[in-house]
């Protein structure tokens, strides 16, 4: 029964507030199993400032404890490998933001119980841009950035 409820919540992709509130109240779903709704406003923001605002973040102190590993020159802007590794305690989330993309917010990673502040994925970059990692830890926001050049190739096909 519990598993079924979890699956239904999942498949909708967003939480149907009525049903879930009841389920939480009935003890069928513990808060950690309920995924927050996909943040449409943040993902559809067109500027970094709006992304930060819509993520509900405040500030973004530069931190040397945030390590961004990405190529200096991306071979292909469609597939740019990016790894963010954070050497801080109490990290709650990591956001991957590409300043020059039409929609800068590409991904967020949220730490659950035991989650280590590390994430890697491949992102799309439209053109040369700063790749920004915004990290929340202990209620504060930190950031780091790295420029990745995106070039135009000559060999299509």
């Amino acid at each position: 029964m519990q598993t079924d409820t979890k699956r239904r919540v999942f498949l909708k992709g967003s939480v149907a507030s009525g049903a879930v509130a009841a389920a939480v109240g009935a003890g069928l779903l513990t808060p950690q199993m309920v995924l927050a709704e996909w943040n449409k406003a943040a993902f559809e923001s067109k500027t970094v400032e709006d992304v930060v605002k819509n993520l509900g973040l405040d500030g973004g102190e530069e931190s040397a404890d945030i390590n961004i590993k990405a190529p200096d020159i991306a071979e292909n802007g469609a597939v740019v490998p990016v790894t963010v590794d954070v050497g801080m305690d109490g990290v709650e989330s990591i956001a991957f933001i590409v300043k020059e993309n039409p929609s800068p917010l590409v991904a967020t990673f949220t730490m659950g119980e035991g989650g280590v502040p590390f994430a890697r994925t491949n992102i799309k970059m439209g053109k040369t841009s700063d790749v920004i990692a915004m990290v929340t830890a202990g209620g504060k926001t930190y950031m780091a950035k790295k420029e990745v050049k995106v070039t135009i190739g000559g060999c299509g096909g």
Partner: protein
Amino acid sequence: MNKLLITAATVAAISLAPAMANKKATETTPEEDVKAYQDYFTKRFNNEVPLNEFQNGVYSIDEGSRENWEAIEEFPPYEPFVEEGEEMWNTPFANGKSYKDCFPDGPALRGNYPYWDADRKMVMTLPLAINECREANGEKPLKYKKGPIATLLAYIGYESRGQKTNVVIPEGDADALAAYNAGKNFYFARRGQLNFSCAHCHFESSGMNVRSDILSPALGHTTGWPVYRSKWGELGTLHRRFSGCNKQVRAKDFPAQGEEYRNLEYFLTHMSNGIEYNGPSARK
């Protein structure tokens, strides 16, 4: 700054391609050719690239893009397709038979192709053999450039890793030699609105730039197929790439697995004799 192994001096000193283009294909034998080409590329890259390393194309000659490629190879984008290909290999046809019946030595088959079929007087390639197997067993043939054929080839390629390229032009077989020379002529002939030959980019200008792309050497071009190209977002076959390159120089395209591209494959693969197969592979 990307460390590129090629120097201006090397480029100036060695200019094999124009010399070859002016020769008739028949003036040199396949054995002479493979030696000449392998020497040419070894010298062009300052003797710093061991023969087998040419299997990695542009990543064997450019540090900057190699780093990017290694990062992608940590999670090879072709891996899920290798598994799917394995399922395809193991799934029987409607008539109960399977690929194993056509290819009892399979799936590590890559090293057997292309080869000269003396009875049918044609170059036989792996994708062609796969479709002949399918048709012989009442199955529809697969399209040759992408999709299921590439998935199956990814599995076969993976299982064949390490096999050495060993294309034979049978001695005394005039038809085989003619097919090889047809492929060779194709390679060195100018084509298209841009009037380039394959050799212009991949011999003479290998290691140099076309905008921000570095041209890979012809040596090793055939070992890594099928290729997951980031640009394609999927796997593609060698003949798909032949097609793309031809279209790029605005030349006439030929059918995948048709005679022109099979002869071209025969010539091109022979050049890499001794180099290990390393498919499937990832490229930008």
